[in-house]
């Protein structure tokens, strides 16, 4: 008996046929699943890759912050440097830690003019003057911002740069630093600029303190000079007073002796003789009295000028005596 081939499957095999018909769909589903799994795996891989990167980046950031803080802390030593030379060496050291420095010059600014404050190997005054004439320095002063330039004498493929940093205290520019460095201008990153700004800020404070210190030293020296000059003047005046006193005393003595002589003549009733010499004596006495008054006036002037510096100065006993010697006889009714 020939087995009749029918499309219908025997019972039990229907499920298999169903499975066969579903096979393509299953395959698609599996493929999709595999794709999905692969996608997931890839995602996991990517995430795995990214995770350390993020960690690294966080680490880098923290490193950056720590580094900046450390640098900032260290650069504080610039603001408390004790001398210009120390300040200059510190600045050069710090900048050299960032990139190779060829030269550093520091210029001070008084609001109108710049002048060289400190320079190292080469004097960059000529370059500075060129930058001033071309308006670069004005830009730096106006903007209070650093500028990175190609050197004036550069050639093709030159790797050097000229950096000009303003030294700012508050809103006032007190000078600027010129750096000649072995780095192309386009290679300066934001970080480089920030670090240089920090250095410039600390340097400005340091230089400001040093300038103030120098001014104080100069003021003190000036004050010392003034005091020394005053003391010298005082000594001179003392000597002058002493000399004057001697002269006055001499004058007064002469006058008093003449007057005494006149009185003696009167007391001895030698009127006739007095009469003979009266006119001559009188002229002499008049002259001497005038001279004495002049001396006293001058003495008063000297006293006044001395008093303005050193307070009251009393005349010596001898001067008082001499004056009394002069005035007592004059008060007498014999001499009019």
């Amino acid at each position, binding site marked *: 008996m020939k087995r009749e081939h029918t499309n219908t499957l025997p019972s039990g095999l229907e499920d298999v046929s169903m499975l066969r018909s579903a096979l393509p769909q299953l395959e698609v589903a599996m493929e999709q699943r595999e794709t999905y799994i692969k996608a997931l795996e890839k995602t996991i891989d990517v995430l795995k890759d990214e995770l350390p990167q993020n960690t690294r980046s966080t680490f880098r950031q923290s490193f950056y912050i720590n580094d900046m803080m450390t640098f900032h802390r260290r650069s504080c030593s610039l603001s408390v440097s004790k001398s210009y030379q120390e300040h200059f060496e510190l600045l050069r050291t710090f900048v050299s830690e960032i990139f190779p420095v060829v030269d550093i010059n520091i210029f001070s600014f008084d609001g109108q003019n710049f002048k060289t404050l400190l320079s190292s190997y080469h004097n960059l005054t000529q370059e500075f003057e060129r930058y001033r004439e071309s308006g670069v320095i004005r830009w730096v002063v106006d903007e209070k911002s650093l500028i990175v*330039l190609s050197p004036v004498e550069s050639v093709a493929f030159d790797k050097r740069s000229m950096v000009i940093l303003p030294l700012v205290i508050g809103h006032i520019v007190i000078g600027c630093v010129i750096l000649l460095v072995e780095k192309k201008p386009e290679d300066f990153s934001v970080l480089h600029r920030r670090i240089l700004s920090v250095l410039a800020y600390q340097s400005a404070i340091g230089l400001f303190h040093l300038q103030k210190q120098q001014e104080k030293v100069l003021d003190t020296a000036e004050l010392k000079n003034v005091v020394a000059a005053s003391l010298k003047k005082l000594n001179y005046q003392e000597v002058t007073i002493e000399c004057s006193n001697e002269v006055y005393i001499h004058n007064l003595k002469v006058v008093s002796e003449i007057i005494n002589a006149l009185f003696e003549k009167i007391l001895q009733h030698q009127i006739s003789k007095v009469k003979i010499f009266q006119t001559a004596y009188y002229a002499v006495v008049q002259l001497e009295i005038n001279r004495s008054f002049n001396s006293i006036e001058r003495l008063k002037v000297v006293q006044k000028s001395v008093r303005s510096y050193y307070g009251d100065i009393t005349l010596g006993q001898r001067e008082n005596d001499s004056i009394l010697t002069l005035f007592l006889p004059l008060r007498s009714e014999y001499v009019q």
Partner: protein
Amino acid sequence: MKLKQTYPIPESVIREKIESLSALPVLDSFAEDVLQLLDEPTTTTSNLLRVVETNPVLSAKILKTANSPVYGFPQSIATVEFAFSILGFDIIKETIVLSLLSSRFEDKTREDVRLQQIWEHALATAIMAKKIARDVNYPVIGEAFSAGLFHDIGYAVIFRLFQNEFEQLYQVSLQQKSARDFSNLEESFFGKITHQIVGAYLLEKWNLPASVCEAVKFHHEPVRAERNLFLASIVHCADIVVRRDGSSASPFDENIIVVDSAVDFLKQHCQDFEVRYFHQTSKPKVIKSVLLKKQKMVV
């Protein structure tokens, strides 16, 4: 010869044309010298600077590039040296080559003679402005040089944009024997838009510093300068002095009058300014020798 009825040209047309102007032509002889200099491997920025700053067109082009916002210094750079420092050797070289090459493709046979005269006068004025600036203690001497160099750049713009019309008017004025009174000629052609305003407008469009634009705009009447009277007075006096002493010959503006208040202003900064620049006769030789040196440098 009669003028067309469209004169004076409307201001809007002039401004529109200036806005479309990207470069001015460079004289062929100068271009060859500069290209030769660029070919030499030993050429430094400084050598190049000394040559470029003798040419107003190249100087303006370099300043235009340096003052573009791309470099972060818009309207701040007034001197070619500052621009050189910002741009660096390679960019300067590219700018110069591009500028010279684009200029080569233009027909400028008629412009050459007059431009030559104008540029010679511009250079003489620039040198004189620098000298005056030094004497009166102007803070940025290079700025005075630039303003002097660009003070007549308006003429180059006029030649470039309205060459035929201008030539026609120039011939008319020659026939009327009034060529020397060039301000009348300008007025009949441009109305109120004189070469000063055209030059200043171009420099403003090219982002040059406001003080330089103002000095160019008011170099005939410096008292109108509000931003920087100092610079405008320097350029005005330099322009007058080089005309009077014969150190440069410009076919235009022969009758320009000295503004006394500008001289007085400069006298405040240099007491014997008038004696030095308006009463001495030895100055032309100085300027002429400097001009010769500059020309030799290019050669």
